């Protein structure tokens, strides 16, 4: 899961940690209360205007500093392809690509994504023409319930972008941060092999 981290992005966990240390004197339930205050525009709310490039389109948004990228995508922008499976950086169902690298959107704060280029599953197919990775997942049936599929496909795309000819081990390593509880793993591995062939040809 190392590759999900990148030095220039402040993770939600780090942010919460830092916030808690800075304000521990006030009260134990402080973080939660602050979120409510922010949303109710009570004193303490910190709203920031940020610019994001999502699926190629520039967006300017007013966000609460504590909103995660996942919340912004799903509840503010209606981009529900990224799924919330755990909200704790464990399952990978919310994986999106930031500057081409896979990140758990539930662990990235909106303010930390300021100015970044974000690709969600909605932006992968161009003009209704499926991306080779998507075509491969269709052909090999690399899914069952498919709740993990948007994140799995984006992780696979990022893997193939940096390693166009992955070995079986490379694929397992590259997708280790994306859980599939149905365990369609054998067909997912075949799908990524298939996608590599499609991209090469």
């Amino acid at each position, binding site marked *: 899961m190392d590759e999900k981290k990148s030095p220039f992005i402040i993770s939600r966990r780090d942010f919460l940690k830092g916030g808690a240390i800075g304000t521990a004197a006030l009260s134990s339930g402080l973080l939660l209360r602050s979120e409510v205050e922010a949303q109710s525009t009570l004193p303490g709310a910190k709203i920031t205007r940020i610019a994001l490039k999502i699926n190629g389109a520039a967006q300017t948004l007013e966000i609460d500093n504590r909103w995660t990228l996942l919340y912004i995508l799903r509840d503010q922008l209606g981009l*529900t392809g990224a799924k919330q*499976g755990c*909200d704790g950086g464990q399952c990978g169902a919310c994986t999106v690509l930031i500057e081409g690298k896979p990140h758990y959107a539930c662990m990235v704060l909106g303010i930390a994504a300021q100015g970044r280029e974000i690709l969600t599953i909605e932006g992968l197919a161009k003009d209704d023409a499926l991306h080779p990775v998507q075509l491969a997942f269709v052909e090999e049936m690399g899914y069952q319930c*498919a709740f993990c599929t948007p994140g799995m496909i984006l992780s696979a795309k990022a893997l193939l972008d940096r390693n166009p000819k992955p070995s079986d081990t490379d694929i397992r390593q590259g997708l280790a941060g994306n859980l599939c509880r149905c365990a369609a793993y054998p067909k997912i591995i075949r799908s990524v092999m298939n996608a590599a062939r499609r991209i090469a040809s």
Partner: protein
Amino acid sequence: MAQELTVVGKAVAGIDATERVTGRAAYTADIQLPRALYAKMLRCPHPHARVKAIDVSKAQALPGVKAVLTPRDIPSAPLAPAHGSRRALTDYVTLAGEAVAAVAAVTPEIAAEALKLIQVDYETLPFVIDAEEALKPTAPQLEKEGNLIGGRPKIFTRGDVEKGFAEADKIVEANYTTPLGTGNPLEPRAVTAQWSQGRLTLWLASQGPFLAQQELAKYLGLPENRIRVISTYVGGGFGHKYSLHPEDVVTALLARKAGQPVKFQMTRAEDMYLGHVRGAASFHVKAGAKRDGAITALSVRRIVNQGAHGASAADGGIQSTGLYNVPNLRVETLQVRTNTPDYGPVRGVMDPGENFAVESAIDELAEAIEMNPLVLRIKNIHKGGDPLDGGVTLSSSGLDECIRTGADRIGWGRRKPTGAQTGAKKIGVGMAVTTRTGGSDTATAIVKVNADGSVNLFCGATDIGTGSRTTLAQIAAEELGVRYEDISITTSDTETTPYSRGSWGSGVILAAGKAVQLAAADARRKLIQAAAQPLQVKPEDLVVANGAIFAKELPEKKITVGQAAARAGYTVIGSGTAHQTNRPTVARGFAAHFAEVEVDTDTGQIRVLRLIAAHDVGRAIHPKVVENQIEGGVIQGIALALTEELIFNRATGRLLNTNFVDFKVPTIKETPPIEVILVEPGDPLGAFGAKGSGETPIQAPAAAIANAVYNATGKRPRELPMTPRRILALL
């Protein structure tokens, strides 16, 4: 089936594949309604407590809070049979995490804040976690009846088990235990509720929207036509999304009280134990056989930790009764209430654990009579046409072929003698067989043929990831005589699709699949009737294929399916109902699994090197759909064998590992090479010979791996999961 099949058996693209790979498939939490509120539940932290007083006034006064509910505000009836005595909100808590109040607010944060403003005065009570502890008279009693559900053990007998043991040349006897587990689908349970003019629409992550509708109607005192349940895309089920759940009715009641739509989604931690779990169980197995390999007697005593509310879903394991022709049998079951999560439907329910116990015992029995365990199994398994308990007959069995082809593939003949290896890392090979009844269900389907030749298929069965939407469309296309591409399918919406009992118990293919076939045949007959007059051919001489209706002997004399539909009134409706309940014959899926493992005797680590899964599926309507079911089930079965276990803090009565990190779910890295062998003898009950295959795959890996560990080390694991700690203790 004189005609060659054109769609059935082919690996067509999934009918909803594009939706699934583009993120357009809308799961329950993806449904966005204007003004929707966010619900949260206030959960009791104690495993056994009474609510002495509850004050919600501060929560109600918080700006942004639109509705608050306590047990006083909801119907007092229990929720649904699958939850036993559990109430949607309660003031008598027997399970840590039960909800005592609920709120709906304009943001999730305000809802969370409101929960903190609710003041609850609890009287905490002593609690009990283990079933055997709970049976002691000194244990805290959870309900008036006591902790033994029904007040006495349930006993099933066949023949005379004492006589059977007296006839045996050898007897083996041992105790096996299996842990608390969870199905844990990646999509947590979710619900969105909206009321309009006294009618409720519920988007629900459910395996059975019709069961939810029925239970909700009863609970709310409303007719079924005022409740619409929609479960279009469901992110995995594994039993967890069977039946109505407390949060579903609470969300509906919050929406009614607030006068606004309300949405709710379980957190991962909530979802891992507050639905249906796989209860901990112990199996005391005694088995006897003659030297010639005739199993003369089998006795199994099951002590099942049923959890807090006495739901009885775990009663049904058939590995003791249903695998072998044992003339003398006794199965005793003690279902025990404890302050732990409720044992409900979970993929395979009791069978994976019971299979581990029984198939380990059979392996041990084979050694005792000095017989190849494969031969002992072949001698004793049920054959197609065999009489079963309850006066029914087994419709078909390809288990013999599964055993032989699987053994061939793994190289069973080259298996090393038990315990013969030196060195720290030892290789072993083991096998297990399993079965499961599928399809004790009823379903109706409707086929609508349009004047352009396109077809709408309406079927209530939910596709929870099993590929049933695709499979059912294939059956319709094949039976009707149109192309797969001509079919559009609508599923799992109680208002627009006919009844289908639900996606569980390996039942969809047998019930809904047959209903679709009957509906398509009905539509085909009507199309042929409409075509007979213009073609001037007798109906019995007409056939439908590839979207055209033509004379058998004169293929150029034809009209299209669309033209026939136009003549019949621009719409042709076919309908079909399949009752697969209470029939004289029973269809069962079968499997034989063969595992090759490496045991590191220094670390206790077990590595599965290879797993061969040979499955009798009747007929695979779509080979990749079936392989997916088997491969995924096997991986889940390996996890039951090696890693998955919910663990209690015994001081607090709370679970310690309700997350994906500490509860060890397999990742893609833990996927061993799995070789699926499809055995397709055909079955007389199902559409095109198909039968269920959703649960057999999870049932046999644990026993196959345990038997392989024995073959490698000469020591027999009797506790799941086989963690390094347990294996080191064993060695």
